[in-house]
């Protein structure tokens, strides 16, 4: 949950959709409050933070969708964001199941990740459906 420091409104990452079209969204480290429009600094690391993080600072386990994870993140698939059979059939038929270990290799122009010894490429919409529990980065 994010809290707007201006108006106090609490909102989830998904609710902060105003930034969805912005190409800087992955780097700017800010979120726009959906109620008042104020730009809140988040714990989400910006480009500097990401570079630092990749160097191997341990991060506590956190849950997020694959679409919000960073290159090099690894963890376990904890579930899907929707369980509607029509949506998850594609993933499950490819053999992507909760419980499997996953590693994110690339986010642009498509999300590339590895499960077991196989790599997959998916678009952002599908990446959003995969929920992961990140494990601490390796040194």
């Amino acid at each position, binding site marked *: 949950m994010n809290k707007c420091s201006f108006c106090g409104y609490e909102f989830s990452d998904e609710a902060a959709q105003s930034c969805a079209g912005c190409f800087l969204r992955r780097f700017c480290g800010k979120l726009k409050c959906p109620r008042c429009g104020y730009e809140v600094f988040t714990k989400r690391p910006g480009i500097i933070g990401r570079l630092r993080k990749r160097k191997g600072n341990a991060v506590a386990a956190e849950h997020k969708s694959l679409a919000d994870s960073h290159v090099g993140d690894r963890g376990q698939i904890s579930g*899907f964001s929707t*369980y*509607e*059979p029509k949506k*998850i*059939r*594609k*993933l*499950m038929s*490819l*053999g992507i*199941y*909760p*419980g499997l270990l996953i590693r994110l*290799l*690339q986010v*642009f*122009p*498509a999300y*590339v990740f590895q499960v077991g010894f*196989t*790599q*997959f*490429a*998916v*678009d952002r*919409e*599908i990446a959003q459906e995969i929920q992961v529990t990140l494990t601490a980065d390796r040194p």
Partner: protein
Amino acid sequence: MEAAVFKTPVYDSLIEKSLLRIESLLINNFHLSKRAIALLLLQGDEEIHKIVSARDRGNYEAIERIIADTQANYKEPLYFVVNLQRQHTASRLSDQAISVPEEPRPSFSENISRLTMRPVTGIPILLLVLYYGLYKFVGIFGAGTLVNYLETGFEKIINPWVSRLVESYIPWVPVQELLAKDYGIITLGFRYALAIVLPIVGTFFIVFSIIEDTGYLPRMALLVDRLFKSIGLNGRAVIPMTLGFGCDTMATMVSRTLETARERIIATLLLALAIPCSAQLGIILAILSGRPRALALWAGFLLLVFLLVGYLTAKLLPGDRPSFYMELPPMRWPNLKNIYTKTYTRMRWYFLEIMPLFILASVLIWLGNTTGVFQQLVAWLTPVVNSLGLPDAIAQVFLFGFFRRDYGAAGLYDLYKTGILSSTQLVVTAATLTLFVPCIAQLIIMIKERGLKTAVAIAVFVFPFAFISGYALNWLISITGVKL
């Protein structure tokens, strides 16, 4: 068939119990075990539900109740629960049967794979592949060197020989014309098929098979996914679209692998409209390569049309946004035998499925000529052609182009050699010709694959659109006064 139970328990006791109850209610015999049917019912398989509700009508309600009762015990849909439990069993089995090393070091092929996927390195690699694979090998070597060599052989040796043979053994002039002469099956149909199309399509299929065998195609797909999304397709469509540069007819057939009907329609339309096939491409490259600015204008114009029409179609056609998901097989060195098999299969397909259509086109042209229908059509087309700023002779090029894309292009080549066309006229003709026709073979496959209604709708759109675009292009060139 009796229930086939797996050696180790696969599902939890609740689901196992429900399965047994459903199995006992299934009366009719299926080819699959009752257990499999019960499982598919639990997972909500529509087809099986339909079959069971028709066959076991009496018990279907009871079965539905069991399914609903079972579902009530789980938060997630049974489809998910059943699959997850089965996957746990699979994982357990695999854990016992294999030993996996600690994370292996990225191999050489893995490093190459990364390079092909990152935009910074991937896009230059993609352009290099297109430049050397398509332009250098297919365009210059296949359509240039090989075609010249074979064509000369045909024109100097085979054609005169066939014409002499036909003239001395067949007394009727119309039959002579059907077989030999200017538009005969052998002199024109076979010559184009063997001397022009075979080397171009052949070289293209070799390149395509190599790209396919190395595992590069899915990487190409992920690179272009975002671009393709804007025209209502997804990255997967890169396969039919690239194949279109070889043969649009085959590509239209391959577009059936796209997931939704909406994507298949968009792909079919774009293939019919804006993707030049290798036969056209080869000849247009040969004509325009001496005029780099004209070539750039032609390519830029087509790209613009491709993106614009794709974008608008995607906006107008109802349906969901396509989604992109693909397994990335490891990159590997191409295997010679595989390449041979793949190229051979495609070539064989080409000759068995497409050659008859080519011969049919020859026959139709012959019919059109002898009955005078063509002269009439050409007369109607002439004012249209003139309005694009083109000479009368181009009308025939367009008409023949419909019967075979490359007939049109080859006809254009003949005109070009006489030197009566200016650069502007060449560009306008090349662009209109590329847009204008799905050749007759492609039209037939369009009807077969997409249905008559869609195919006709696409054709009705493409024909006037090509001429309007040609008109616009001519107008643009003349008002901007660009020197080509």
